């Protein structure tokens, strides 16, 4: 029997407010020593009163709008009760039945590099709500003695936004794409750093399988402990296969929580679980909120241009393909970089220029950035550096192969392309008479290749042209090198 995979996600992201959700301690604890961003409120001392951070509410409204949610006029906070040492008060302030945003959707664009096409899938968003993060536990295991935990309260009370999707994803890849999309949107909005490895962006997944065409599926598993996009993909792949195997072997799937292990499997965590009994009730220390439509409209008017809209604009304005535009706009800094470049490279033929630029940004330059693990907005190659180089290529002053070397040099030194060309003598040789000497030298040095060519082996020509490029550090226009070499060789035939 064939099964389909059903996946829904819960995504938590820390909000980029200056202060915590309910107190004035600094929210950024990344470089803080343990328990230094802590006060009686986030420590959960008796008798303290939380106060609501307006910015956090606005960030959630902003996100909910960007995810096409409705914003009900009434919202409130609730207590979620459970005993655990990471929870200072014995309850977490969260939102239960009246979240800030409800019923939205996100459109996934599944790009296919082979066919250069984009397929769209709509994933419904159930809700977006606000809660507080919990303290961080460090587990200590002493081989000859005790094992215990250490508590750092710095993270406790940092605003945490939870986005819940409907079970609309049908493959681990769609789940991964949704995370990438959400990360991109939240970064465009500037509401979160969305770094999975650092824990400012976390994902739990509900996954089950269902016979194709059936209404009811099997029991779902909640998978936790995935701390990278890759881990989410691998954990869900593993789970999808495991569940099929259990069913095919006549086994019985139970609803359970499973943790992803680095070794590449998921394990049941049910033995350590107590029944979920959170006893939610309205938070008595916080008055409810009325979100006026005028407040919502004010926030809507401040929304930045989001990736999808920007993508359409780039296609329209610069004649880019949907595929290129979708990659360029997937990261705000990349799209900003592209547009800064285009501003510096005006004049006719914008579409051709945009295509050349986009090829560089998605090709050689992207490769350099990836290899060195540097973000585009932190690179020494600024838009003005890059455009200077592209102009030199356009003018014919620099050959394509030399340009690849030059961009590496700019990348490492921050020098200007023009200076590098002069210093290293990389000006393109465009005059046939200037390379004839080199061509003759190459012919003299490689008699074997020459005789191969004469005997009809065309590959020998590629080799010989390669030698010219090598001797001239790539300064010769490859087409020209080819022409002159062929001409000289044919004289020998």
């Amino acid at each position, binding site marked *: 029997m064939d099964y389909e995979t059903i996946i829904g996600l819960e995504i938590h992201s820390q909000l980029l*407010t*200056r*202060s915590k959700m309910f107190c*004035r*301690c*600094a929210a950024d604890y990344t470089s803080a*020593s*343990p*328990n*230094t*961003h*802590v*006060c*009686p409120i986030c*420590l959960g001392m008796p008798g303290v009163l939380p*106060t*609501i*951070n*307006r*910015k*956090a*509410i606005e960030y959630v409204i902003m996100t909910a709008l960007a995810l096409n949610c409705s914003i009900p006029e009434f919202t*409130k906070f609730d207590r979620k*009760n*459970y*005993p*655990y*040492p990471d929870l200072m008060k014995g309850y977490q302030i969260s939102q239960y039945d009246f979240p800030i945003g409800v019923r939205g959707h996100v459109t996934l664009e599944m790009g296919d590099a082979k066919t250069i096409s984009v397929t769209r899938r709509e994933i419904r968003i159930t809700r977006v709500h606000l809660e507080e993060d919990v303290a961080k*536990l*460090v*587990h200590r295991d002493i081989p000859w003695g*005790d*094992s*215990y*935990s*250490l*508590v*750092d*309260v710095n993270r406790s009370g940092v605003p945490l936004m939870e986005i819940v999707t409907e079970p609309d994803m049908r493959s681990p890849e769609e789940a991964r794409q949704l995370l990438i999309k959400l990360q991109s949107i939240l970064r465009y909005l500037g509401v979160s750093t969305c770094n999975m490895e650092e824990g400012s962006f976390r994902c739990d997944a509900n996954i089950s399988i269902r016979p194709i065409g059936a209404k009811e599926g099997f029991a779902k598993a909640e998978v936790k402990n995935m701390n990278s996009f890759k881990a989410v993909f691998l954990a869900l792949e593993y789970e999808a296969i495991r569940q099929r195997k259990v069913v095919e072997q006549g086994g019985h799937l139970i609803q359970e929580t499973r943790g992803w292990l680095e070794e590449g499997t998921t394990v049941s*965590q049910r*033995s*350590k*679980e*107590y029944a*979920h*009994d959170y*006893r939610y009730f*309205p938070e*008595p220390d*916080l*008055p*409810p*909120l*009325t979100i006026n439509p005028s407040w919502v409209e004010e926030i809507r008017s401040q929304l930045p241009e989001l990736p999808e809209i920007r993508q359409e604009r780039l296609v329209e304005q610069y004649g880019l393909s949907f595929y290129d535009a979708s990659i360029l706009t997937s990261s705000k800094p990349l799209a900003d970089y592209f547009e800064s470049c285009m501003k510096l490279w005006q004049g006719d033929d914008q579409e051709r220029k945009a295509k050349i630029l986009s090829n560089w940004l998605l090709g050689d330059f992207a490769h350099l950035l990836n290899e060195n693990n540097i973000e585009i907005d932190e690179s020494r190659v600024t838009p003005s550096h890059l455009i200077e180089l592209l102009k030199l290529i356009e003018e014919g002053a620099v050959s394509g192969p030399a340009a690849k070397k030059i961009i590496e040099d700019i990348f490492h030194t921050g020098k200007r392309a023009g200076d590098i060309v002069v210093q290293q003598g990389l000006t393109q040789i465009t005059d046939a008479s200037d390379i004839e000497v080199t061509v003759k030298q190459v012919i003299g040095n490689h008699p074997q290749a020459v005789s191969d060519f004469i005997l009809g082996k065309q590959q020998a020509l590629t080799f010989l042209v390669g030698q010219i490029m090598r001797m001239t550090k790539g300064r010769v226009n490859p087409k020209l090198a080819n022409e002159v070499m062929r001409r000289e060789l044919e004289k020998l035939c």
Partner: protein
Amino acid sequence: MILSQEEVNHIALLARLGLSNEEVERFREQLSNILENFAILQEVDTTDVPPTAQPIPLQNILRQDDVDSSLPCEEVMANAPRREGNYFRVKSVLGKS
């Protein structure tokens, strides 16, 4: 309304309290009394009263996103039964409910 022993044990587990059999009986009686008293409130006709999350007539009490100084570490640690460096030290906890 009389609570069962299982219900008392469940509540004790949620609060991480260990109860002797004698205590289970005692709390069963006391908690049942409390529930009975609250049951009286159930008799009030609330058909025309909207659900109320907060009895105090306040709403939209928000603060600006400003940072203030936190507590000095020694004060944070002042009541800690056990500490290690500037961490609170607690019994081993692995796996989360």
